[in-house]
């Protein structure tokens, strides 16, 4: 019976989905790492490296400033994550049930769509001595008719890099926390604590956070890993003498002196070690906080400077929002500027010449970016839905260790495994281009899609399916006609998140596509290194427009398609 066979086919496909997803995540990361281990110990036959030795490590150790690079990577990663986390916690604690919070949430969510590079470019434009912030105050307030000479962004302590990372990671952590709140009965616990006399922030810190934290621990680790190994943000906002380790790794990998490849591979492995070390420090910090705070939790004290800290959190949040908002404004102004000398705060006359100039080539990049984004999102969505559906069909909830695999591409620094992956790609004779790039993007898209979808998928009331099954619907039909329609909104949101992640990818596009594939991000980053700020701004804006369109579709489509189904509408 055809019906029966189709149903079996569906169940089979669903059964294999998790294995396929796991393979997709593990194989490239493991293979890529293997690809740098050889050269790190002197083994790379193409460069006459036929003996295993420690020479690359000795060369690496001799690099001036290595220790500073490592500590810079560690400090910026930990400080920015801590900053973003503290802001998120204070914000949730002080404002969770207020109107202001809804406004902030509405403003922050779209910022999640802003690619890292675009945000960094915008913040750089804003805060540089000749940037918009100083122009707005000059010369009437500052007396400057030429830009002052101070080292920011790019200060040797990494403060500007930390600021940029905080601004970019805070929306991510906030969204992850918001998704986790219902799971830990946050609202009830918060209300309970307040009824027991605890001021809102203290109630949150003592009654909600200890249960929330374990749920957002992996996203936090992902943020640490990202911050400790970021290349594009650190190139734009980080110090240069010395830069962070990840930037140095890329420089050494690109050094024309090919013998540096050995040392660069050792450095790539060191980067992995640095990321692990950063995670370890954080983990120790967690233990320490738990130890120090366990007494305070039950001390009965009901107000720990709530008003002050809450006010501070609100102020800082608006500062971050203002920073990102002004950065975007600055980007927009630059795209419309002709010759725009310091200290003029407004470019005049405005011109659309920059857009016209970019139109021809940009169009091409827009299409390539969109195609790659859609393709990798489609693959990732299929795998994620398949894996989640298999949990339901086979009643096997993913174990914690499996969950960790999902985070693999987010925890292992791309710098450490992508170069090896390129070697692997060449060895397997996979032509650089569309296929490799789309697969490479999927590697980073899949975890985000899965994370954003899994909660809604698992929490969907199982009784819908039971009702349908008693009405003779096969598992496939239940899936197609019940589960998917009911999950329209989360599915579209997950797809929009995945698409945004794909648009923001820099290193995988560059390395796996052999540069043949140009996306808005590769163009924007390559232009950011060049002299034309106007064109850079055009690309940075386009780079952020695509994900924005994705998110508006995710919110707008259900409103349109399901206008007669109020129960499925976005809140």
């Amino acid at each position, binding site marked *: 019976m055809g019906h029966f066979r189709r149903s079996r086919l569906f169940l089979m496909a669903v059964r294999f989905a998790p294995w396929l997803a796991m393979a997709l995540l593990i194989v490239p990361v493991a293979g890529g790492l293997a690809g740098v281990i050889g050269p790190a110990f002197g083994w790379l036959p193409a460069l006459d490296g036929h003996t295993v030795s420690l020479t690359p490590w000795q060369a690496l150790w001799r690099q001036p400033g290595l220790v500073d690079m490592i500590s810079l990577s560690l400090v910026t990663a930990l400080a920015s994550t801590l900053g973003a986390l503290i802001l998120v916690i204070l914000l949730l604690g002080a404002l969770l049930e207020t109107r202001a919070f809804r406004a902030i949430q509405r403003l922050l969510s779209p910022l999640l769509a802003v690619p890292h590079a675009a945000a960094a470019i915008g913040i750089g434009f804003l805060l540089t001595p000749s940037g918009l912030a100083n122009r707005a105050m000059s010369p009437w307030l500052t007396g400057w008719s030429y830009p002052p000479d101070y080292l920011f962004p790019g200060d040797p302590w990494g403060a500007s890099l930390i600021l940029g990372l905080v601004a970019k990671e805070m929306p991510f952590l906030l969204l992850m926390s918001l998704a986790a709140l219902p799971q830990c009965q946050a609202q*009830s616990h918060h*209300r*309970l604590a307040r*009824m027991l*006399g605890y001021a*809102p922030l203290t109630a949150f810190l*003592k009654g909600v956070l*200890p249960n929330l934290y374990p749920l957002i621990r992996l996203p936090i680790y992902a943020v640490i890993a990202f911050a400790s190994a970021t290349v594009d943000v650190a190139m734009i906002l980080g110090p240069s003498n010395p830069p962070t380790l990840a930037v140095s790794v890329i420089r050494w990998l690109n050094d024309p002196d090919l013998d540096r490849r050995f040392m660069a591979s050792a450095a790539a492995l060191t980067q992995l070690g640095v990321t692990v070390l950063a995670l370890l420090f954080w983990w120790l910090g967690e233990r320490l906080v738990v130890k120090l705070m366990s007494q305070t*939790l039950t001390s*009965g004290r009901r107000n720990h400077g709530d008003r002050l800290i809450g006010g501070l959190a609100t102020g800082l949040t608006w500062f971050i929002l203002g920073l990102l908002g002004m950065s975007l404004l600055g980007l927009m102004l630059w795209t419309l500027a002709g010759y725009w000398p310091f200290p003029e705060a407004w470019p005049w006359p405005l011109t659309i010449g920059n857009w016209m100039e970019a139109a021809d080539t940009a169009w091409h990049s827009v299409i390539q970016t969109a195609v790659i984004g859609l393709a990798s999102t489609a693959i990732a969505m299929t795998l994620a839905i398949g894996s989640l559906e298999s949990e339901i069909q086979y009643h096997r909830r993913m174990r914690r260790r499996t969950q960790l695999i999902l985070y693999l591409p987010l925890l292992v620094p791309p710098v450490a495994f992508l170069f090896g992956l390129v070697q692997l790609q060449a060895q397997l004779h996979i032509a650089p281009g569309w296929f490799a790039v789309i697969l490479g993007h999927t590697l980073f898209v899949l975890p985000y899609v899965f994370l954003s979808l899994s909660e809604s998928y698992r929490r969907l009331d199982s009784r819908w399916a039971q009702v349908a099954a008693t009405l003779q619907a096969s598992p496939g039909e239940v899936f197609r006609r019940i589960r998917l329609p009911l999950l329209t909104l989360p599915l579209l949101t997950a797809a929009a998140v995945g698409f945004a992640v794909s648009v923001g990818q820099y290193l995988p596009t560059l390395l796996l596509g052999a540069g043949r594939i140009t996306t808005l991000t590769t163009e924007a980053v390559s232009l950011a290194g060049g002299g034309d700020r106007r064109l850079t701004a055009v690309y940075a804006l386009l780079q952020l427009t695509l994900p924005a369109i994705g998110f508006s579709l995710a919110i707008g489509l259900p409103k349109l398609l399901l206008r007669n189904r109020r129960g499925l509408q976005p809140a």
Partner: protein
Amino acid sequence: MPGNDSDNILHLDAIDIRLQETPLVAIDTRIEPGEILTVMGPSGVGKSTLLAFIAGFLDPAFSARGNVWLQGRELTRLPAEQRRLGLLFQDPLLFPHLSVGGNLAFGLRDGNSRRERHAQIDRALADIGLPGYADRDPATLSGGQRSRVALMRVLLSRPHAMLLDEPFSKLDMTLREEMRSLVFSRIHQENLPTLMVTHDEADAEAAGGRVFRLLPPT
């Protein structure tokens, strides 16, 4: 002036809650110390809305007029944490990150030495028939035990009045009886004015006080 009530009276003064101009709940009454006023009605009628208004969690979608007076303070302009109302929820809602003793300590007001606090908690546990349970994980307790800890946690925070939100609805029959008598006897003992919201006639009967019936909006 109702504001002069310095006795422990919970005064619901001309309360009128509406949802977009549709009247939902209107109540005007004084609850004496130790008295349990039962508010009854089918679900969706606004019982919980009334409770949320008094406790300070009213959804902004509702509009409310009227005042709540307790020990000479007008509560509606105070944030929830300053109202000194003890709220007992349907679920015990013990904090999973704290031990049983920790949960009680959470309710206990600060000020005393650590030693004194420990002693207070031990006494409280003995009081509800759970001596030596201080270090237990709340997840290992039975439903009835959890409810008792939750009650004790509220009492340790020294509330000036109690709000009960269908406190026994999730317990099975035998436990329900037991909890009712425990809760009510403690309320009488502490002389707390109490507002109980329920849809179980037996609750109202056991409380033995006035019953205020909300009708579904017509």
